[in-house]
C-alpha cells in the first residue's frame, strides 16, 4: 500500500520540516505541564505554540486535523479527496474516554453536571470527527488499543484497502496531554521525573507527550491514475498478543517477535534487509529490556535502531502514527537522528541505539509498538 502523504505535530515540531530540524540538531523540549494543573513532578512534551480553539472540540481532534491537513497537502488530494472512497482509521486513548475531572467533580458534588463536556466527547470520536470534517463517506474506525493504537490503525487501513473497502485511507493516531493518564501512569511507577532515556542503563521511566501522526495510504493503481509516482509503501504489518499480563510485557518477548516476523513475512523480506528500526522504546525498565532483547535476537546485535520518544515523549495513541512518519522520514532523508537521552549501554539488554545522527542505507525500515494489555504491533516501510 502506497504512502502518498504524511503529517506530524508533536513536542518535536508542528510539521515535518520543524521535526527534521529538531532531529538534526538533537533538540528536545520537555518541561512541566502547562495545559493542566497537577502536583506531580513529571516533565511532559507539549506541542510548542499549538493554537487550540475555544474548547468546544477536543484538543486531540485539533492535533489530528493539523497533521491530516499537512498529509493531505503532501498527497496532492486537497481538491480531489471527495472523488475517492476515503476511509479514516485513527488510534487514540484520551479521545475515547470521558475522563473530564471537572465534569465528574460537578456530578459527584451536586448530582448534576454541565453537558458541554459530554457534547465534546460525543462529537469527538476521532475517526468519525475527521470523517465529518473532510466530508468523507468511506469506513471510519477509531482504534483504542492503548499505546499501539496508531500502528494498529495503519494496519486496519491496510486491511481495508486489500479488501477493497475503500481506495484511500487517512490513518495514524492522535492524543492530547491529559491529567488523568499522567496520574495513571504515575501510579504505575513508570514515569520519570527527568527527561526520558530510552534503552539507557540508568533509564527511570517514560515522559508523556502529545501529538498526531497521519499517513495517507492508497492503492497503487489509484496513485498512478492521479499521475503520481510511488515512493514509499507499507509492505508489511503484524500484530500479536502476549496473553500474559494487563500492563507488563511478556518477559520472553515472543509476542513482539511474532508481530515482527509476521510483518516481515508479509513484506517478503529477511531481517538482514532492514536498514533501521524505530523502536517503541518508552524508557521504562520492562519495555526496553524486552524490546531490546527481541531486536537483538531477531536482527542481531549490530542492528541500527533508535527511540524517538526522547524527542516527543510517549504520545500513547499517537505514538504509532508519529513513529510511522518518522520511519518514512528516515528512509527519505537517508539518516536517522541520535536516540536522544541514551548515554550508557545496559549490559542486561546487550544492544544499544544509535548515539548520533546516523546515515542509513537500505530500502526497508521497521516501526514497533507495544501496548498495555500485551498487544504488539510492527509495520515494515519500503522505499522504492
Amino acid at each position, binding site marked *: 500500500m502506497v504512502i502518498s502523504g504524511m503529517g506530524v505535530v508533536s513536542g518535536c515540531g508542528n510539521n515535518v520540516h520543524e521535526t527534521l530540524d529538531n532531529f538534526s540538531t538533537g533538540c528536545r523540549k520537555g518541561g512541566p505541564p502547562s495545559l493542566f494543573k497537577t502536583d506531580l513532578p513529571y516533565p511532559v512534551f507539549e506541542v510548542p505554540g499549538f493554537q487550540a480553539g475555544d474548547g468546544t472540540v477536543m484538543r486531540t481532534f485539533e492535533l489530528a486535523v493539523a497533521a491530516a491537513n499537512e498529509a493531505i497537502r503532501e498527497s496532492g488530494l486537497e481538491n480531489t479527496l471527495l472523488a475517492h472512497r476515503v476511509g479514516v482509521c485513527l488510534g487514540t486513548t484520551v479521545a475515547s474516554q470521558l475522563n473530564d475531572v471537572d465534569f465528574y467533580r460537578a456530578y459527584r458534588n451536586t448530582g448534576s453536571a454541565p453537558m458541554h463536556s459530554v457534547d465534546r466527547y460525543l462529537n469527538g470520536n476521532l475517526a468519525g470527527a475527521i470523517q465529518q470534517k473532510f466530508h468523507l463517506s468511506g469506513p471510519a474506525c*477509531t482504534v483504542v488499543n492503548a499505546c499501539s493504537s496508531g500502528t494498529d490503525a495503519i494496519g486496519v487501513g491496510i486491511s481495508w484497502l486489500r479488501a477493497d473497502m475503500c481506495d484511500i485511507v487517512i490513518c495514524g493516531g492522535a492524543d492530547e496531554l491529559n491529567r488523568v493518564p499522567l496520574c495513571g501512569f*504515575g501510579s504505575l511507577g513508570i514515569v520519570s521525573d527527568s527527561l526520558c532515556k530510552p534503552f539507557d542503563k540508568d533509564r527511570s521511566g517514560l515522559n508523556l507527550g502529545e501529538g498526531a501522526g497521519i499517513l495517507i495510504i492508497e492503492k497503487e493503481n489509484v496513485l498512478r491514475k492521479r499521475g503520481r509516482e510511488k515512493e514509499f509503501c507499507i509492505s508489511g504489518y503484524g500484530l500479536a498478543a502476549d496473553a500474559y499480563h494487563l500492563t507488563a510485557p511478556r518477559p520472553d518477548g515472543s509476542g513482539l517477535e511474532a508481530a515482527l516476523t509476521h510483518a516481515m513475512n508479509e513484506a517478503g523480506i529477511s531481517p538482514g534487509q532492514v536498514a533501521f528500526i524505530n523502536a517503541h522504546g518508552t524508557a521504562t525498565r520492562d519495555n526496553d529490556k524486552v524490546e531490546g532483547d527481541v531486536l537483538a535476537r531477531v536482527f542481531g546485535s549490530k542492528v541500527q535502531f533508535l527511540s524517538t520518544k526522547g524527542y516527543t515523549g510517549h504520545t500513547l495513541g499517537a505514538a504509532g502514527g508519529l513513529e510511522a512518519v518518522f520511519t518514512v522520514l528516515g528512509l527519505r532523508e537517508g539518516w536517522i537522528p541520535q536516540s536522544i537521552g541514551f548515554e550508557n549501554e545496559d549490559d542486561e539488554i546487550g544492544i544499544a541505539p544509535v548515539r548520533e545522527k546516523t546515515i542509513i542505507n537500505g530500502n526497508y525500515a521497521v516501526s514497533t509498538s507495544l501496548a*498495555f494489555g500485551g498487544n504488539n504491533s510492527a509495520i515494515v516501510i519500503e522505499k522504492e
Partner: protein
Amino acid sequence: MNIAGIGIVFNRGRGLPALEKALEEGWVPPTASRYSVSDDFIKDRVILKEMRRADTFSKMACLAAHDAVADSGLSVAGKSSLGIILASALGPYVTTFRFLDDILQYGDAKVSPTVFSHSVHNAAVSYIALCLQSRGPTLTITQFSQSFYQALLLAEAWMLEDRCTHVLVGSAEQCDDILEYVCRQKIHLAEDGKIEPFLFSESPKAVPGEGSVFFLLDKQETSGKYGKISIHGDNGVQGLDMYLLECSGLTGDEAVYRNDAKAGPLISSYTPLFGSMMSGIGFSCAAAALMLKNQRYYAAPVQSNPHNAPLCGGHQSAPLNTIRCISYGCHNEKMEFTLKHAHG
C-alpha cells in the same frame, strides 16, 4: 462469514439458554430504571480465575467471548489463528469514573494503579486473550453506534487477507448512574421501563441496558448451526423472512425506520429485552442467529403498533431462512446485517 459460536451476557442471564428463555417469555420490566447485569451472572471461578481484580466490563466481555468459543467447539490448535475484536461505544467508562473518584478523593499522586489499568479500553480484550491463551491479533475499537458494524467489517477483512482463520467479534457496554444521568439530559427515558420500538417516534424513549455478546466467525464454505452473517451484498427484500429493527430510543429520531417497516417482510425488534445500548445491534444479531438455528419465530416482546406494521405477533415454529437486522446511526447512516440459515 460463518457463525460458529455465540456467547452472551445480558440482564436476563448468561448463555444462549438465557437468551432463548427471554425470547420465549417476552418483555419483563427492569427491576430499576435500567436493565443491569446481576453480579450473579458474572461469577465463574474457573473462567475468571485470573480476573479477581477485573471490573464488570471485562468480566462480561470475557465470559461472552469464552462462551462463544466453547459453543463453537474450536480446538486449542485453532486458537493459534484466532483474531479478537471488541467493539464498544463507551468502553469501561464506569472504571474511568472510579479512577476520577480516586483523583478527587486522594490527589494526583495517590491513585490506584489497578483501577487505572482497568480503565483502558483494551483491558477486556487483554483478559480475553489471557483467558483463551490466544496469541493472535487483538483489537478494540470504538465508533459509537457504528462500533459493531465496523468490527464485523474488519473481521471480514482479516479473514479475506488470511490474517486469521477465525475471528471472535463482540461488543460490550456497561451502564451506571452517571450514564443514566447523561441519558436523562440528552434523550428521553421510558419511566415504565418499556422500549416501544414500533412507535417509530421522532422522540423515542430508551431504557439503558448493559451486557456483552460475542460471535466466533470463520470463513468455512459450509454453514454451521447458526448460518452466515453478511454486511454487504444485495439489500433487496426478495427471499427475506424478517427484519429486526434496532429501535431502542438511543439515537434520536426513529421515524427513519418507517420505510423499513413498510418494505414487505415481517418485522420484529428485541431491544425491549436487552435495553438500549449504542452497540446493541450485536444482541439483535444473536437473537436472529438463534431464531435461524431453532427455525422459530419469536413474537415481538412489545407490540404497540400504531402504524400497522407487519409485526411478528406470536411464537411460531416454521421455516426461516433469512433475517436482516437494521440499525441507523447517529447521523441516520444505515447499517444492515443479513443472517442466512445454514440451508437457506
